[in-house]
């Protein structure tokens, strides 16, 4: 179902994002963080930690997770779920590559 309604928007090139890093996409009031892992996979999460709304885009990216810069919660890039003993979830968005172009599904 989702595939039918997903609107894929080009937001930039893969190389715009540093490896093990993130860049932000502003979408109205919402900020979406696009992550790039060391093996060039891309993920998109709302730029808000479920704990205290810390900007996840500013965190350290490691092994498919990002550590929030405010209080070190570890969030899965794939699911948006908090890892370890913490509980919480950040909304995630579909994202894919068309060649070098990053497409964000909204």
């Amino acid at each position, binding site marked *: 179902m989702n595939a039918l309604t997903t609107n894929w*928007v080009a937001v930039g090139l893969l190389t715009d994002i540093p*490896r093990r890093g993130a860049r932000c996409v502003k979408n109205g009031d919402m900020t979406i963080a696009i992550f790039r892992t060391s093996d060039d996979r891309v993920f998109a999460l709302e730029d808000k930690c479920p704990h205290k709304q*810390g900007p996840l885009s*500013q965190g*350290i990216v490691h092994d498919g997770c990002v550590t929030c810069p405010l209080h070190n919660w570890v969030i899965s890039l794939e699911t948006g779920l908090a890892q370890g*003993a913490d509980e919480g979830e950040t909304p995630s968005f579909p994202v894919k590559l068309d060649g070098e172009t990053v497409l964000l599904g909204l």
Partner: protein
Amino acid sequence: MSEKQKLVVIGNGMAPGRMLEHLFDIEVDAFDVTIFNAEPRVNYNRLMLSPVLSGEKAYADIITHDDDWYSQHGVTLHKSAKIVEIDRSAKTVTCEHGTTTRYDKLVIATGSNPFIIPVPGHELDGVLTYRDLDDVERMIEVAEDKGHAVVIGGGLLGLEAAAGLKAQGMGVTVLHLMPTLMERQLDTAAGYLLEKAFEDLGISVMTKANTKQILGHDGKVVGVELEDGTRIDACMVVMAVGIRPSTALAKEADFAVNRGIVVSDSMLTNDPDVFALGECVEHRGMCYGLVAPLYEMAQVIAKQLTGSADASYEGSVTATKLKVTGIDLYSAGDFAEADDREEIVLRDAAAGVYKRLVLKDDKIIGAVLYGDTADGPWFFDMLKKGADVSEMRDTLIFGQAYQGGEPLDPMAAVAALPDDAEICGCNGVCKGTIVSAIGEKGLTNLDNVRAHTKASASCGTCTGLVEQLLGLTLGDAYNPAAITPMCGCTDLGHSDVRRLIKAKGLKSIPEVMQELEWKTSCGCAKCRPALNYYLVCDWPDEYADDYQSRFINERVHANIQKDGTYSVVPRMWGGVTSSSELRAIADVVDKFDIPTVKVTGGQRIDMLGIKKEDLPDVWADLGKAGFVSGQAYAKGLRTVKTCVGTDWCRFGTQDSTGLGIKLEKFMWGSWTPAKLKMAVSGCPRNCAEATCKDIGVVCVDSGYEIHFAGAAGLDIKGTEILGSVTTEDEVMEHVVALAQMYREQGHYLERIYKWAKRIGYDEIRRQIMNDPDARKAYYERFVFSQQFAQVDPWNERVSGKDKHEFKPMATLSLEAAE
């Protein structure tokens, strides 16, 4: 019935906090909860006030529920809001500010008030009680001037207060009315041993001491006079003679009140919609002041509120532990002598051990342990269960390890405990709960166990038992004495990693991870910043700093704030500024609409609330006025605080300002394992507070005293003296060499005082003061690395470096978002 029932709680101590936890565990959405707290704060662990007083912990460490917890659970918490009236017919409570709130169910948890002996002088400034954080803060404040304190009351609270004040550097006298200390919990023999132990700590104890009056001068305490005419000088008097249930509010609303608010076994007052909980309660004629019974009551109320009408509280037998470092004391039950009772006593004077068990009908009814309390929980467990001990009577006093033949090791003693044996008395956690949590949730260390079960999370005295359970359950996989690995990605500790980086010549993060067999593909947020620092430090000319392994503050050269904005602090060398610098800052503040400007503790100016996108422009303007980054975000050199020294001060002995500026200009830009704060004071009056810094210099007539390893944050510690030198050049060489030694040996995030303690102060003095070759080599390595480090990061970014950090990748138009 869509509207939720309203639950109002008066009081926000440990008991109601625990009740709400149980309530939310049973049913998250049962009630709309409102709490009125007379204190201006959240729920914290009162058992831990003693470590806060002695300086071993800070307030932040003892918070049980932070503001977030209340909002997550939809609880409305009114702080500094004392309830002054309960209207039972209207079912409302009224707060001192005048607001009235309706309830369906009410829990009164007003706690207790410290009892103040009404002797003349009890209202003088400096007469304190010991109940809440305000008391502790006040005590720490008075203790700053050192001086002498008198503690009236030699019970649990009084003794903990006395030990804490002693740890704060005060002289302390304990006055106790009865012939021996803690007479309600201890027999006379143990009371005597305890008195000796306190005298050994340097605390004088006076028993049978009846206070006649507190002496004052100008409204302040100056001493205490006893009935027998003895006078003791003191600038502080702590009253710790006991507590009284706080019942005034309940009395006024016509609840049944004796000593406390009377409750039934279901914890209800004489009003079917009103419970009472905690220290304000009287149950079957008993009032309780220890946490374990209060937690049991809390659980009963939570069950009652959620419809388990048969949940009932049947009173508690309590056990006591004294939380004073170095003194082991445990008492439980009833130990008065009587005809139908027998006792078993073990004394070992040389080891300072005293144990006494009181038996009645072959059952333990009381236990006092002094010096060796390991068997306390075992005795207490048999006491509560009424176990028949006739079979093991001959060896009972030797403890659990001696039952059944051969002496066993302590691990076996824990192994032999039944699953329902209580390990953590404060939180009522039994062995079975801990063991199954370790197994099911894969817990591997103490912190995990605390997080998941709450065992050992209150007073902490059962920590040893919990660790033994971890050992027992995990076997060889648990080894607390082993080197703590850097993080979950490796088994190596920081020291090993640092050594191997040098020994194997590893020069990049992937190389380290490959050669040292990292268990993850690209590390984690703990090890990557550490490795990056070690490589920057060890190979300053060859290693390319990995920005993606730096914490955000060091990546964007500003300090991230709670709302995701940043703060910016330019360097003000030695804390000296000028009209043109101040004007430039004022212009930047106006231009970028910066909401807060604050003077920092390190003698410079902080601009807070700057949007990330604005940072390069802010820096550009600051740079034009000659400012560079103050590195207020760095694990690196922060500030060199100074006083005005011989430039202006009539007491100044040397040019402290000039020396501070020289040090800062020489050392700025260097990365260190953790932040490095310095100070130079122009005379021993020490206005720059150099004796609590990482490295401090105190100028004296004959030259310079170099200090190091102070702390004034989470821990408070005066500096150690490195040594004295006579010229500024020598100061530079010694300070820089010390900093380099720390840079090369410190573990990432390990402040200098922790490193110094680990390495040994004498070893550091030997290398820096007494070994000129070693000192010069350190100095030269620092100088070498500075040529790569002293690049102003703000200027680099104004010139375009890392542009991507400060701009969004894309801004979608509204159409595209639909």
